[in-house]
Each structure stands twice: as structure tokens, then as C-alpha cells.
């Protein structure tokens, strides 16, 4: 390893190396991954936009790299991609906020 930080852009191209530890699981994952992103009830373009939103939500720089490019290559534009990121943001923010109800439940129980 020739770098001293956790994320390295070149590592995205080395993704398949993870298969060296267990080729069988890697093959299964790869086949599943390809099937997931193939055209189905949703188009490849729609799936790439979902993937971009999820990539931002899970804050994976590799996935953001890969699916920003993929969205452009499926014909999406930056306005659509920005909206996908906002959807992820809204769900993530909403998920935080809705847990506030649990906070209120605890506060109600503990308070006089």
C-alpha cells in the first residue's frame, strides 16, 4: 500500500481484488449486482439515479464516483442527479427527525 490515508481513488478500479479472499462469494455478488442493475421494471437510468442517492446517503466516495458517471452515461443530467441526492438527504434527515418522537417518548416517561 503506497498511501497513508483511508480512501484512494485508484482503489475503485481494484474492487475485484476483494474476490481473491473468496472467489465464489465474489462471483455470486457480481452476478447479483449485474442482475440488480439490468433493465427491469425500472430502467437502467432510474436505477443509476437511485444508486447515486444511496451512494450519497451511505457516503461512499467510490460509489459516488461510479454512479455520478453512470448517471451521465445513462442520459441523466445534473439537475436530475441533484434531485436524487436531495431525496436521499430528505430521507436521511427525516429518519433523524422522526426518531425525535422516540426521544419525546423517553422524555415523557422520565419527566414529572
Amino acid at each position, binding site marked *: 500500500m503506497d498511501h497513508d490515508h483511508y480512501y484512494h481513488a485508484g482503489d475503485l478500479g481494484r474492487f475485484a481484488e476483494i474476490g481473491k479472499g473468496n472467489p465464489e462469494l465474489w462471483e455470486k455478488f457480481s452476478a447479483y449486482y449485474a442482475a440488480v442493475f439490468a433493465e427491469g421494471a425500472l*430502467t*437502467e*437510468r432510474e436505477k443509476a439515479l437511485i444508486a447515486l442517492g444511496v451512494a450519497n446517503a451511505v457516503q461512499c466516495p467510490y460509489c459516488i464516483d461510479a454512479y455520478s*458517471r453512470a448517471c*451521465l*452515461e*445513462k*442520459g441523466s*443530467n445534473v*439537475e436530475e442527479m441533484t434531485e436524487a441526492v436531495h431525496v436521499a438527504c430528505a430521507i436521511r434527515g427525516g429518519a433523524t427527525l422522526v426518531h425525535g418522537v422516540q426521544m419525546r417518548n423517553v422524555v415523557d416517561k422520565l419527566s414529572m
Partner: protein
Amino acid sequence: MSLQASLRSRQSALASPDEQLRILAGEGDAASFDATLAGAQLAPLRASGVGVLQINVGKLCNQSCGHCHVDAGPDRREVMTPETAAQCIAALARSDIPTVDITGGAPELNPSFRWLVEQSHALGRHVIDRCNLTVLLLPSQDDLGAFLAAHRVEVVASLPYYRPAQTDAQRGDGVFARSIAAIRKLNHLGYGQPDSGLELNLVVNPVGAFLPAKQTAIEAQFRRELERREGVVFSHLYTITNMPISRFLEFLLASGNYQAYMERLVAAFNPGAVAGVMCRSMVSVGWDGTLYDCDFNQMLELPVRDDAPRHVRDFDAARLGTRRIVTRNHCYGCTAGAGSSCGGTTT
């Protein structure tokens, strides 16, 4: 993006085909296109006849697009003479090549353009005009649409996206609005309308360092969006990969995308796309009559191999139809993914 000067007039080192080829040859770490072809048992690449005579009538254009492989623009003066145009028609007349594909620059600005169309049409050949659309709005070209329709010319027009921002980023400020106005004009003449027999086909190049979308998917998307947003129609849509030469090469280098783009093209090499590459079924004529395997080789000044005729005055369809194709690493652009040609994907 405002209208930019050509590489040539900016005296950029990239105006030189030798400099472009030097960059494309790389440091030797990536596989050469020829080695990749050989590895796929597809070498040498040979022509399989001549179905299209593509005539590039010169580099003069009213636009100056950021991805232009011709380095065309208003500041270019290389244009085909009437004498060379006559040699093209003579070559056509002594062959049975079914299609004449006229390109540029903006080919309509060449004084011989309409003569070439008339003569080709009179010989019973199908004629394609590779049109930048905005030329139709020039005062000098007011009757161009009607002329094209009268000669049943297929219009192949560039429109990289159905929204203004992306289109203008590639082709210049205000180009989207003028392109749509030109499409309206063509639609009014019957172009792109079902059953009119007047084909208006759109060409889509990615607006950046990425590969084109799947042709069938993006065609449906363009059809829906252009009709909904602008109320215009077209016949078919072709996707074309941006070739890493000339002004697009300049963009790749300046933006730090060159290495990754080439790696992407190489990784996406598709042996199944090779059989349909356009060089196998066309001959490209330069503004000075020199013959090339394709318009990209023409801009890199790589003429056909010297075992075939190299000037249109010596045109010999039989010999050219079996020639060996000249290839370099830019050819990865035509074999990536679904393949790329003047008629869209090759698979």
C-alpha cells in the same frame, strides 16, 4: 461557452496531427489498439466494400464546438474547390456506391454543396447532409431547408442534449435555442414527421468525458422530452462516442480527464463492435481530394494505405473496398461499449 477560436488559429500544439498521435501513442503502458485487435483475432482490419462515400467539403463552420474533431470554425479557410467536387461526382458516377454523406465544417457553407447534392441526387444516390442545424437560420441559407427537402436529403443533425445548458456548454451560447428553431423549420417542411419520407436524425455526443447512453434508451428519452418541452419531432437518434482527438483531446488534457477517459475506452473495448465500424464500409474524401478510411483519420492526416488509390481523382471502388484500414489508438473510440459510427452504435 462563447465561440472559441480553433486550435489552428490559437497556434495550439494540438493543432498538429503529429502531436495528437504522439499523445495517443501513450507511454506504452496501455495496450495499443492494434495489439488489442490482434488479441481478439480481428487483425488486420479490412474494408468490406464501399457503401458510403463521405465527402468532407471543408473546415469552415458557423459554430466552434468544444468537442469538434475537425477543429472547424468561422476562422478556418480550407474548403473543397469545384474541381475537387467534380472529381467526387465523377468517382461516384463510375461506381455503384449507394450513399453520399456530405460533412464539414458546416458543409452547406461550401459553394459546391448544392451542386454536389443535385449531382448525387441525379445519379440516384441517397444523400446525407451532416448539419449543425444553426446554419439553417443564416440569412444566406434561408432556402436551404426547402432545397434539402426537394432533393430528399437525409438530415443528420447534432444535438447533444434536450436541455439548453448541456447543449450550449458543448456547442456555444444560444446554440440550443437556435437548433430548436431550425428543427421547427425542418419539421414544418415535413422532416422528422411520420410517413413524410424526410428523415431528420439526431446525433448525440456526450457533453463531457463519459461514454454515450444506450441508443434505444436515450432515443426514447429525447423523443419524449423534445416533444414535451419544445414540441419538435425527429426520426431516429444516433449516439456517437467523443473521439479523443483535436478539440475534445484538448478538453480531456486541460480537465485532467485524458488518462481516465482512455482507460475507459480501452476497458470498454467490445470485439463485437468491430465488424460494424464505419471505416469498413466507407471511404472519406478530404477537402483537397485525399482519401481516408474515416473522418477521424482524415483529421489526423492518416490517409488510406498506399496500396489503394489515395486521391479521389484515382478512385477505384473495387480496390478501396478490400483495403486494409489504418488504425491508431483513437480507434478505441469506435469500439467501446456498443460501438460508435456515423450511423450510431455498431452492435
